[in-house]
């Protein structure tokens, strides 16, 4: 089940939604042609429910939004970048397991 707690962000609202968010934000850069990106979707949804209120989980489609991935030098997806107070805390590239994603999120909590 897709979680309603996951926000879809784009180039124009990235600064307000992610950089300016009071909560730490995890951004999942993905694209519809990327199998591993789609496959980690259910894990991202579970994390959004489990960490509700502690972290904002967002997704950005890199096909529709070229500017932000370019700014962060993304050349491989899925890439997940963790932001806190507008700064990059850490990032992971590749379809990693749920545990590694929890470890990543914990770096901002």
């Amino acid at each position, binding site marked *: 089940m897709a979680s309603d707690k996951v926000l879809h962000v784009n180039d124009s609202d990235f600064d307000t939604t992610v950089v300016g968010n009071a909560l730490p934000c995890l951004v999942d850069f993905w*694209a519809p*042609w990327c*199998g591993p990106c*789609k*496959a980690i979707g259910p894990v991202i949804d579970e994390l959004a429910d489990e960490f509700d209120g502690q972290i904002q989980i967002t997704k950005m489609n890199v096909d529709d939004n070229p500017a932000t991935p370019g700014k962060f030098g*993304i*050349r491989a997806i899925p890439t997940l970048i963790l932001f806190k107070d507008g700064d990059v805390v850490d990032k992971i590239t590749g379809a990693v*397991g749920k*545990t590694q*994603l929890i470890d990543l999120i914990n770096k901002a909590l």
Partner: protein
Amino acid sequence: MDADYQLIIVGGGPAGLSAGLYAARARLKALLIEKGAAGGQVLTTDRVDNYPGFPDGISGFELIDTMTAHVDRFGLEKRFAEVVRLDLQGQVKTLFLDNGEQLRAQTVILATGARPRNLDIPGEKEFAGRGVSYCATCDGPFYRDQEIAVVGGGNTAIQEAIHLTRFAARVTVIHRRDELRATKVLQEKAFANDRIDFIWDTRVQAIEGDEDGVTGLHLLGKDGTGSTLPVTGIFILIGVIPNNEMLPLDQLESDEAGFILTDTEMATATSGVYAAGDIRSKRFRQIINAAGEGANAELSAEQYLAGQAEHT
């Protein structure tokens, strides 16, 4: 000590999902544990053209999605978690999860799969995700109109080299031998594609780059000639290594590369424990093999459970 499940399947690729389908239909109390992206290596395949029943081909993701829908229809219990350790000895096997939880099962099917082998050369780790890739389907579109390289000569390397010509200006295949292992249909396609070049009898020695990512490769030919190849991306598709880190190899038998040995019915050296798919020691790693082995492993597990029930 009672078991929580009759069967636990570790891994949610084609082998695990096929085993899960058979288990759900057999109405076993079964659980499939997957650590993250269900589907494993198949997900990184742009197009599967050799799985029967899909005459027009199917994307790796769609194939897994279809297999997942199939097990869901029969109500297989699934869970996202990482198995960090297993104790397979005795009548009840214990699986230790990363959150400290322990699950007990009468039988276990190991379907943990394999992952891409690294070249283990300077620059590879440093530039991972910044020009070094192991998934052409995922990262190909980032290399539009650029010059890139593919390392390898098997089915995966050649299929993905062909796929990458949809984006890249030029794809150079670097292979350490003077002929390809890939199947003939793929070879014919690759040789006919004027955007693909080949460099034979050559190894990549190092990957170079700057703050923006990869800029080129250092090559060494069999005859000792060194050269450089300017590229912005390198796709390393040189085979796989087993996902066996969590497995108790002292309780199983494995081959030199760490793949698990089984008999023809998928039984490992430990009773009640089976292996299926890419984690199994075998010659050919294909989706269809994995699926068949998953079914076979589940049927073997069922037979074992029936035998256990008779004794109690």
